């Protein structure tokens, strides 16, 4: 951040990237439904649907390369996330977790796909929506399984704790289940994508700006670009990881709601 301040202090007119860079104007006129993130979200839905329908259409015993690729992703979510975390009732939640994982992963990866280069999840609305879905799903599952009264009682009064501790524990538990979980879930994803994209913008726009400067600055510019490229690989890792974490936490919350004791 200091280098940014210094650069702008040199009076070259460098405008550092800010949250404004995430607010993209509508593509068609004033229609708020035609901004780049919205178009990309729909594009991701089409892309994922086409890929997985094509991959699963034949459902052959001996899979083609395409089917194998689709199956690998599906089997990862089904076995490593749903089955290992949730247990014997996992099959009911596989479609939701699978949708969640592919949706977040694809939209995250848009951040480093050439020409698209914008992680949709850096628009906070989408993580909010996903967190609300997960919030509804895991509470619904818990209430269905244990009944509303027992479910709430288990959350508020954790069994096996001395009574006076409830003064402290009950507000914390309530906040955890109804506020902290959905908020952290959405903000973690949002912040990672937002910060990652901002970081890439800083290095690439900075490199571009340096290239326009005096000869000394021109020589430094390749390093900024190289860092930008290095960070792109780092971003790839973060994007995959965040899709995994969101899905994993959702599976954990569902497993918690299904379990008899929290």
């Amino acid at each position, binding site marked *: 951040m200091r280098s940014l*301040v210094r650069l702008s202090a040199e009076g070259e007119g460098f405008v550092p990237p800010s949250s404004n860079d995430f607010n993209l104007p509508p593509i068609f006129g004033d229609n708020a439904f035609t901004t780049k993130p919205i178009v990309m979200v729909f594009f991701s*839905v089409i892309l994922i649907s086409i890929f997985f329908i094509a991959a699963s259409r034949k459902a052959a015993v001996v899979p083609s390369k395409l089917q194998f690729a689709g199956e690998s992703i599906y089997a990862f979510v089904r076995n490593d996330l749903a089955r290992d975390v949730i247990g014997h009732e996992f099959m009911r939640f596989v479609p939701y977790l699978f949708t969640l994982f592919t949706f977040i992963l694809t939209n995250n990866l848009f951040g480093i796909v050439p020409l698209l280069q914008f992680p949709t999840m850096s628009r906070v609305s*989408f993580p909010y929506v996903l967190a609300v879905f997960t919030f509804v799903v895991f509470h619904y599952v818990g209430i269905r399984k244990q009944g509303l009264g027992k479910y709430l009682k288990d959350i508020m009064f954790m069994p096996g704790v001395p009574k006076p501790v409830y003064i402290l524990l009950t507000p914390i538990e309530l906040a955890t289940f109804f506020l902290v979980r959905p908020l952290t879930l959405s903000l973690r994803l949002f912040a990672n994508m937002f910060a990652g994209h901002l970081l890439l913008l800083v290095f690439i726009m900075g490199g571009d700006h340096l290239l326009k400067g005096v000869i000394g600055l021109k020589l430094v510019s390749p390093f900024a670009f190289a860092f930008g490229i290095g960070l792109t690989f780092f971003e790839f890792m973060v994007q995959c990881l965040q899709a995994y974490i969101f899905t994993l936490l959702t599976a954990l919350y569902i497993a918690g709601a299904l379990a008899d004791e929290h």
Partner: protein
Amino acid sequence: MRFVNLAEAGKLNPLIPHTAELIVGFVAFSLLFIVLRSKVVPMFEKAFKERTNAIQGGMERAEQAQLEAQRALVQYNEQLSKAREEAQTLREEARVQGSAIIEELRTKAQEEAARITATAQASIEAERQQAITSLRGEVGALAVELASKIVGEALDDQARQSRVVDRFLDDLEKSK
């Protein structure tokens, strides 16, 4: 400093959701969920189930085949040992029979040889007797003839003597 200022200026708070995006997020995610749940998940599950069945069925079939093969092997081994025993007895029998045959043949051949020898000796003896008989008669006649010729002619010299003998022998040859 400008960087900080921008954030403070609060032009856009990135944490405030956008209504259009909320709607789109909800719709798009629901759409994707419906598509994946109805089209993709059942198909993958079907493929998994079929694969499991195929592998299990294959394993059971292989087990069956192995059992059958083992049974066949035991059977073959039994048959083989039985056949060996049979061959052994057959060989034994053949050897006994063979020696018996050879013995019989040998006796027969010896008998035959003895018989042939006896016949040959008998016929030789008969011929000898016949030759002796005929020689006895002929030698007598010849001796008488020779003696009469010798006596009949004057035997002065050696040349004549030998001539007589030669003529005699010539006659003898002619008469033959």
